[in-house]
Structures are given as structure tokens and as C-alpha cells.
């Protein structure tokens, strides 16, 4: 069992607080991904868990034991670094056995563990090579091998795929996920790539400006973002946002956009949004909530002029101006118009989101 608890964890550099009180409870064998833009505090939090950064405030506990003052080597963790951090003068086998040698493990046991890890990661043929003789993907595997040989309580990954090309990144993403299924271990994974976060995590933790914006399963974050920040960060292409005003018009609840365009709010959402009538709000709609075909209940038809068309194969992205902003819609390729032409776009208002204009919190 290896539960990881973060209680009001703070990291400050002089007057600047990089991490401003993170509370998180990570269950045994859970795969948690920290995601957020550069400087949001995700890597700093990971490094505090690893013991590579001192904790300015709060408490970190692994398996119920507070590790604040423990050296990294005493925490029973393993970490995979962004640049792999393999020892260049040692062979793959030596890299993998180094940590076991520090534990004064018998040679036979070390060799057995290295062999087992190498088989798991399909790097058995590379054991005598130096890191300089390996490709990026192979180095990544060796870095993971170095982590799994010691059978740690917690795995830490610090943007491990960001040095790989796009194709290899997708492949390694799957391998890490497979490895977690094969060797279930509590895992904290840091990335700035929301697709990595969505595809790999049991739970995604979105961080912004040193705080957790929202933590939850990927689908929950996608469908029920807690803030405009999370809504904009999760999903690709990101959600479209328009300044609007929520108004009661007769029996209807409507959104009035900046250019006077009125969009009817579906009845199912009235109870939730009516208390915010006459308030300035931000209207959010995902590109995939817009379609070239109508017919859905709650859909609103809009006549738009398409500025740019990006065919991706499975879907086509179209860009158009609405109420002073540029919006993106993901539509069926067969309905894609040519750039410069007009088309009728159907907005699925059942999938609309509203955020408080001032705080950005979801309404």
C-alpha cells in the first residue's frame, strides 16, 4: 500500500510563492497526472514529493509517514526525468543497477532484477550499451527500467515524453500506461500536454498559478470544468469563449452576445442558470459541440462566414468570427465549406458552459 498525501504544501522562493497550498490525497496504485501551463507549480510540487526541493510549508506523507525531512533516497520513490538523466559513462545495466548497489543488495539479486525489468521493457539486448548509443525512445525505456528495478512505493514522472517526436510520444504514452497496468504502483506524472493527461490519468489535477484548479477523472474535467481556466486547458482544440449577458426574455432564459445576437438557453439548464440572470457571464462552447447538421433538440442555428478551413481527416476545423471573437468548430468533413463561403452552423446548447465573468468559476 502506498498512499500519497499532500497537506497545504507550500513552496516559496523569497517573497514569491510557486506553490500556494496544495491539498491532495492520492490513493494506492492511482495514476495521477498534474497538468498546467509553464510556471503553474506542477514540477515544483513533484520535486517536493521527490525531496529535490525543500518544502516551505505543509506536509507530504508517503504511506502515512511524513517525509518532509527525508532525503530523496530514503523516500522509496523512483523518478523519470524529462532529459532521462541517465549516467552517460555507465552501461544500461549499470544505470539500472546503480540504485540497487546503493542499497547494498546482493549481486545475484541485482542481476535478476535488472534482467526482469529489461524483459518487461524489451531492452534486454541493450544492457551493454551506453546511453549515447541509444535512440530517444530506448533511453526513455532505460529511464523507466531504472525506476522499476527498485520496486518503489511511488513513481514520479517529470514530463518524460517532451523530448520525443510526436509519433514516439504516442507510442511511449501507451507503453507507460501498459506498464502501470502490469506493475500497479502509485504514480504522479507531470506534463503540460493535456492529451497526455487525458489519455493516461485515473485522475487529472489541473494546476494554475501555484494552486489546484480542479482534480478529477478526465471525463469529469472535460464535461464539467470547474473554471474557465480548466475549460480552456482541457480539450483540443480548446473551448470557445464569448462575453455575454444572461437575460430573462418573457418565459425564456437567453444569452445576449456582445453584438446583440440572442441564443436561447435550453430548458434543462434554466434552474441552474436562472439565479445569474442579468449578470455578465462568459459563454463557453467546445468546437465539437458545433455541427454542420441540425436536428438536435436544443440546437441553435447560426449563419457564419468561414475564414479558415483545416481538414484533419476525421473532422474538419473551421474558423469564423462571431461577436468580436474568432471561434473554432469541429464539423463533419462532408459538410466542410470552402474558406470565404457561408454556412449554417448548429450549436448544441445542451453542451454549453457558463462562467462568472469576474472570477471565471463555472456557474
Amino acid at each position, binding site marked *: 500500500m502506498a498512499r500519497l498525501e499532500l497537506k497545504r504544501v507550500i513552496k516559496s522562493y523569497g517573497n514569491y510563492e510557486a506553490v500556494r497550498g496544495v491539498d491532495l490525497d492520492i490513493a494506492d496504485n492511482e495514476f495521477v497526472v498534474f497538468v498546467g501551463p509553464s510556471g503553474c507549480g506542477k514540477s515544483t510540487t513533484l520535486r517536493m514529493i*521527490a525531496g*529535490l526541493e525543500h518544502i516551505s510549508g505543509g506536509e507530504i506523507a508517503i504511506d502515512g509517514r511524513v517525509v518532509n525531512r527525508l532525503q530523496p*533516497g530514503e523516500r522509496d520513490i523512483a*523518478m523519470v526525468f524529462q*532529459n532521462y538523466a541517465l*549516467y552517460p559513462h555507465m552501461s544500461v545495466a549499470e544505470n539500472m543497477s546503480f*540504485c540497487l548497489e*546503493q542499497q547494498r543488495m546482493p549481486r545475484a539479486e541485482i542481476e535478476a532484477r535488472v534482467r526482469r525489468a529489461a524483459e518487461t521493457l524489451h531492452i534486454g539486448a541493450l544492457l551493454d550499451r551506453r546511453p549515447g548509443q541509444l535512440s530517444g525512445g530506448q533511453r526513455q525505456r532505460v529511464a523507466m527500467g531504472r525506476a522499476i528495478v527498485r520496486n518503489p512505493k511511488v513513481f514520479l514522472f517529470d514530463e518524460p515524453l517532451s523530448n520525443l517526436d510526436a509519433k514516439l510520444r504516442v507510442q511511449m504514452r501507451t507503453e507507460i500506461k501498459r506498464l502501470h497496468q502490469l506493475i500497479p504502483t502509485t504514480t504522479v506524472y507531470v506534463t503540460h500536454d493535456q492529451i497526455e493527461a487525458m489519455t493516461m490519468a485515473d485522475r487529472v489535477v489541473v494546476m494554475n498559478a501555484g494552486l489546484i484548479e480542479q482534480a478529477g477523472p478526465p471525463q469529469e474535467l472535460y464535461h464539467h470544468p470547474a473554471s474557465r481556466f480548466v475549460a480552456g486547458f482541457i480539450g483540443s482544440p480548446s473551448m470557445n469563449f464569448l462575453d455575454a449577458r444572461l437575460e430573462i426574455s418573457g418565459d425564456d432564459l437567453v444569452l445576449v452576445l456582445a453584438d446583440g445576437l440572442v441564443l436561447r438557453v435550453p430548458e434543462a439548464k434554466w434552474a441552474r442558470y436562472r439565479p445569474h440572470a442579468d449578470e455578465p457571464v462568459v459563454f463557453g462552447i467546445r468546437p465539437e459541440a458545433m455541427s454542420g447538421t441540425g436536428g438536435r433538440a436544443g440546437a441553435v442555428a447560426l449563419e457564419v462566414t468561414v475564414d479558415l478551413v483545416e481538414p484533419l481527416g476525421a473532422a474538419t476545423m473551421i474558423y469564423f468570427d462571431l461577436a468580436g471573437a474568432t471561434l473554432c468548430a469541429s464539423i463533419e468533413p462532408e459538410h466542410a465549406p470552402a474558406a470565404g463561403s457561408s454556412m449554417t452552423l448548429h450549436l448544441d446548447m445542451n453542451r454549453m458552459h457558463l462562467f462568472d465573468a469576474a472570477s471565471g468559476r463555472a456557474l
Partner: protein
Amino acid sequence: MTLANASKPILRRDEAGGETVRYALFVLVAGLVALFFLMPIVWSIANSFKPAAEALADPVSLVSSAFSLENYRRLEGVGAGWTSYAANSVVVALGTVALTVLVAVPAGYGFSKFRFPGQTLLFVLVMATMMIPFQSILTPLFLILKWLRLQNSLFGLVLIYVTFQLPFSIFMMRNAFDAVPRALIEAARIDGASQWTILRRIMLPIALPGVATVAMFAFLNSWNEFLAALIFLSDQNKFTLPIMLVNVSSGIYGIIDWGALQAGITVTMVPCIVLFLSLQRYYVRGLTAGAVK
């Protein structure tokens, strides 16, 4: 179309010809420059193997018809004999190398990978000592060595050389350690390695070119140093090779024995050349460490 096609190979031949001429010119100039620098070395070595009479012959010739070890034999008669002086030089040079590396490696590691109060000031102070002319502090150094009862001692001379070698060596080692990514230290810490293990098993092997550079400079400088050795050593049996070279003279009027002098120069420079050539691969890498990522 036909014309264009026909002219293409001619153009290519011209270009190839131009390239060959340029390359030949480059080889010629480079060869001349190399010859210019190699000549004194070749001259010394060649003269050291000539019979005494031929060393001063007029006109001079580079290569002698008679091969002779006479100059080397005469060198054995200078003072305590060249082998004693060579042994002293070896002791001083190896001692300087060992002590310099022993101090510069941990010092460079400390300056590179640790943060402590007054770090920059201390580093600047260490570097500033490079600007003090060696000759200007010979008297206080002599007094200190006398107080330590280390004057006229090879160990005392080693201490002097190490003192003057350290600023550059610490600077070199700091650069060498700076070039090692911090993530490697962090990975080793997570692997449970102690600071000593990190330095010994991770940092030092990676920073080996820097160590080689420091060792080579310490060796060459202490091997070739003359003034301090002349002043701090008074016993003829403890002299080093550069002092022996000054004393290579013959006859009651102190006429310089050119043949023996060339033999002495050869004996003195050969270890330096061998060391430089064998370490130059590391040396170049050490000097450029940290220049680019």
C-alpha cells in the same frame, strides 16, 4: 539545352580544380607553419645526438653523419647527474599534480553545485590571486616556507606550485562540473547515493576531461618552472631539470657546453610532449566544457 548540358561538366571540372589548388595551398601553408614551430624541437633533438665537435661546426648541419650519445654521457657528469635532477622533477611534478587535483576537484564541485553565503566573493577572491605576479611575493613565500621549515625541500616547492596552480584549476573544475547536468545529481540522490558517491561515481568520471586538463597544466607548469625552484632550493642534489640546464657548462671559464645543453633540453621536453599528445583529446574537451550545451 544542348549547350547548357555540354557546359555543365566543364564547370564542374573547373570547380574541382579550384578546390584542389586551394587544398594544396592550405597544406603548403600549414606545413610551413608547422615546420616553423617544430624546427627548434627537431634542432635540439638532432644536436643532442651529434658528437661534441659537430655541435659547434660551421657551417651547421641539421643531421650528423655520426650518431653519438656523448652529450648524454656528459650530462651525467653535470652536478649530481641528470637522472637525479630528472627524479627530483618527477617528484615535484607528480606531487603538484596529485595535490592540485586533490584540492581543485572538491573545490570546483563545491563552487559549481552548492550554494553557500559569500560564494561569489570567495570565488572572485580565489580568481583574483591569479592577477598577483608570482615574482612579487617570492620574499613572503620564502619567509613562510622558512617558518614552516620547508625551505630547501621538494615538498615545500610542491606547496608553492600547488598554491599558484589552484586558482586556474578550481576555475577549470568548476566549469567542468557546471557542464554536468544537475538532473544527474538529482537522479543519483533519488537512487540513494551519498555526496561522496555522487562525486566519485557520477561527477568525476563525467568531468574527467577537466581533471586531465588540470593535471596536465599542473605537470607542465611545475616541470618547467625555474625561478621558484632556484630560490627555494639551495641544495644542489635537490635541483630540478630547469636549474640543471642553467648549470650545464664546461671548463674553468664556464663555457656553455652546447651539445650537453641540447641533450638536457631534449630530456626535459620529451615528457611534456608525450604527456601533451596523450592527453590532448581530453584537454581540448576540458577547455571547452560548458561552452555550448
